[in-house]
């Protein structure tokens, strides 16, 4: 079979009416396994192969403006008509001019697990076997559903400025549902996780943690009325930081659309900073992290960008397009978050009485203000050696106000799309009581 990417590139390169173009072929192979508590219900083999083509050309009747459009080609589909459609669409739109990125040195960030590449079906089966063994040995809770997605994707990007680059990713995604209790008292936990390599998934450890939390949900009391320190750890902290507010306010696209009011040089906080200073990077260089990669969809190299330095906003996460529009450096597509270690040992942060929130129904703050009121699935009232689980009620506050009054742990960890302190103690957040169920 002819090389479909080469055919598309030849077709694009032969046109004189384009200011630029990018073609990316993605070829994905994967295995999926679905199980109930005792046996495999569904097995699936998956293959997907397509090419995304972006064209950039002058707007009709206005050479000072440009238009952009994207089309997708499936395997076996001719490139010519799709490109023609893209050009016709792009010419009709009007945008300030910008240029596509040119060739640059690309980082060699590891993103591929050879074990997954070699045999994704065996990888899925092996993970599932480990889970079944772990769940069989745990009486406090029981597995009722497990889904495994194991994938290997290769991509090849070529653009009109001379970029010709390859990269590959592996990915394993899981969803488990774990039950505790019977009848009216039955509770569940839905646990999902994405990782790029098998070594970053501790099946037995995660099972123990989720089973323990599910058992705690069974004996949880209604949420109390509370106003005071709140601790987030691990994946809950990752959820809090990646919940949209930071991503929106630091986005070059959002700034150009006037949705983000943030400007470089300004404090990211509206009031006094009572806690540790906030420093944060957006990075695509963490080995095996969710957004790690040699290059993004435009071909910009993976990089580590200082977003916030000691409470002061530094720069936007911007594609080449928005970097041009805002006259800022092009940092590339969305990335993983990195926060430096704090000064306080975790043991000290969790020593005094506090509430710890482990999971929410859906933590979804308002993206521009950071205000949130999110239902708590599992939390603990912690006082001395006592940890009393509760469920329901709302955690109420504001993401930015919370980050202005936080102490970070000196211990750090990696949580898929966040690398940084394992623990954060927020000075003051509110828990509203639940209505008795």
């Amino acid at each position: 079979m002819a090389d479909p990417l080469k055919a598309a590139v030849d077709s694009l390169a032969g046109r004189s009416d384009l200011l630029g173009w990018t073609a990316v072929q993605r070829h994905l192979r994967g295995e999926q396994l679905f199980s109930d508590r005792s046996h495999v219900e569904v097995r699936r083999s998956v293959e997907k192969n397509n090419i995304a083509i972006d064209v950039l050309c002058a707007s009709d009747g206005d050479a000072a403006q440009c238009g952009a459009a994207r089309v997708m080609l499936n395997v076996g589909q001719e490139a010519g008509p799709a490109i023609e459609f893209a050009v016709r669409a792009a010419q009709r739109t009007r945008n300030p001019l910008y240029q596509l990125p040119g060739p640059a040195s690309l980082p060699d960030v590891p993103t591929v697990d050879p074990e997954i590449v070699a045999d994704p079906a065996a990888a899925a089966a092996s993970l599932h076997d480990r889970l079944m063994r772990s769940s069989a040995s745990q009486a406090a809770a029981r597995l009722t559903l497990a889904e495994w997605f194991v994938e290997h994707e290769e991509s090849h990007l070529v653009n009109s400025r001379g970029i010709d680059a390859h990269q590959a990713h592996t990915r394993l995604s899981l969803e488990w549902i774990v039950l505790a209790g019977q009848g009216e008292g039955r509770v569940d936990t839905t646990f999902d996780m994405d990782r790029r390599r098998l070594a970053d998934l501790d099946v037995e450890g995660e099972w123990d943690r989720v089973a323990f939390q599910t058992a705690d949900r069974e004996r949880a009391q209604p949420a109390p009325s509370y106003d005071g320190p709140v601790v987030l750890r691990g994946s809950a902290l990752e959820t809090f930081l990646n919940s949209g507010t930071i991503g929106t306010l630091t986005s070059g696209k959002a700034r150009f659309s006037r949705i983000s009011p943030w400007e470089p040089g300004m404090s990211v906080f509206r009031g006094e900073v009572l806690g540790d200073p906030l420093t944060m990077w957006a990075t695509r260089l963490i080995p095996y992290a969710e957004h790690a990669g040699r290059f993004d969809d435009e071909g910009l190299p993976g990089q580590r960008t200082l977003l916030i330095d000691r409470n002061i906003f530094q720069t936007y996460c911007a594609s080449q397009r928005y970097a041009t529009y805002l006259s800022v450096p092009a940092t590339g597509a969305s990335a993983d978050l990195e926060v430096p270690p704090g000064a306080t040992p975790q043991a000290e942060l969790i020593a005094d009485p506090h509430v710890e929130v482990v999971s929410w129904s859906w933590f979804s703050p308002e993206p521009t203000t950071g205000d949130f009121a999110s239902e708590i699935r599992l939390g603990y009232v912690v006082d001395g050696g006592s940890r009393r689980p509760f469920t329901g009620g709302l955690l109420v506050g504001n993401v930015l106000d919370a980050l202005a009054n936080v102490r970070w742990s000196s211990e750090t960890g990696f949580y898929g799309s966040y690398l940084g302190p394992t623990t954060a103690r927020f000075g003051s957040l509110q828990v509203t009581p639940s209505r008795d169920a």
Partner: protein
Amino acid sequence: MPVPQLPAPMIDLRPRLGAAVAKLEQRSPYAAVLLSSREGISIEVEQKEEKISQLPLSAGVVLTCLANGVLTERSLPGFEAGRLDQAVRAMHQDLGVAPKRTPESDEPIAARDFATAGKAPARQLSLEDKLERCRDIQRRLTRIDPRVVNARVAYVEQSETSVFRSRSQDLAQEVVRLRISAMAILSQDGQVRYDWLGKGGTGGWEMLGYTDEELNSVVEGAARMFSAERIEPAEYTVVTGPGVSGVLAHESFGHGVETDLFPKERARAFDYLGRKVGSPLVDIVDDPSLDGGYASYFFDDEGMLSEPTTIVDKGIFRRGISDMLSARTLDLHRTANGRRQDFTRKPYARMSNTFFGTGTTSVEDLFAQVDHGVFLNRWVNGMEDPQGWGIQITCHYGQEIVHGKLTGRVFSPVSLSGYVPQVLDTIRGVGPLVQMDQGTCGKGHKEYMPNSSGGPHLLLQVRLG
């Protein structure tokens, strides 16, 4: 009846599917082939930026065999005959032993084809026409108030074509879903606030127009947000607009009655079949055959022809919505709700258009019954909890009601939470007119697909924070 316009490679492959099913059924009691293509375009128009994109293309074949309680599937990209034949041979070989099965009839089965109707079909409008219509809405929004620093109009046109072939079905459909959103972004004293209004459905562009009054309401909504306060967490008397009513139906007796959750003890509703779960005013329906509904289709991804399912009838839980596997496992009535995100995913029991049935109380009378409460009319998201029957709906804002009238006081954001049967039991007034919203729904945090929910205005008692 409009005729579906299937992609040419899909038309070419369709006649071969009967033989593929027959070959697979030599070694499996049940086999089916699905050809599925999802494509579309999006147009975004802002003050200084315009974009036209083709949506991520998803086109491929799914081979399905059900043997010994295990569903085995292969997903192949594209519609190539050689690749199909190769995959059928490989699957046939993997299946191993021949099943016990009643011999198939030699009767030819009639093909049944379906397509979305519309007064102004999207394909009859040029790309330029669509872009210009979006620009017109964007310009009208921008002119309403000097504080509007940007207005964004986003249009999405999705075409889903599929062919389903089993021993007894030969079906084809083309479903065109259109959706548009008009958003105003206002700036005042360094603060940014926004609001939006979406429209859409299956059909033509006749659904997507905005009146001046509607666009004014978008800008007024955003302007109101500058004075928004945090709500005092407490229990309130609430009037929900149709959109918020719909999310309540979707999260309570939508997700919670997807029958693939039942055998896994994941849904408390399973224990409540035939029992009271809400006030007698509560009817909840899922209807993939709803005329013009954004999530409507003619048959599901497992070849089941669409028809409505009454889930809750006068406060009594009657029936769940099912995919093939769970309906067989539990010996339940099968409904047309086996849906896939795309050809690379398995089918699950999924909602389509889910909504509260109508009542008889006028909206004015619902408001008149509120001494002090909140009107919730703009939702952002919702989350299900089929096991615990908790519910969370996040609203962009809520408006204070005092003595039946809106006072102009606004709270933002507002989260509605509670325990499903208690929330549904507090419903004491239901409006007379159902309106549907358009959205995207996941199962947990994945498997996203077009979805719609709605209802009339409701009067109820809930906890807000």
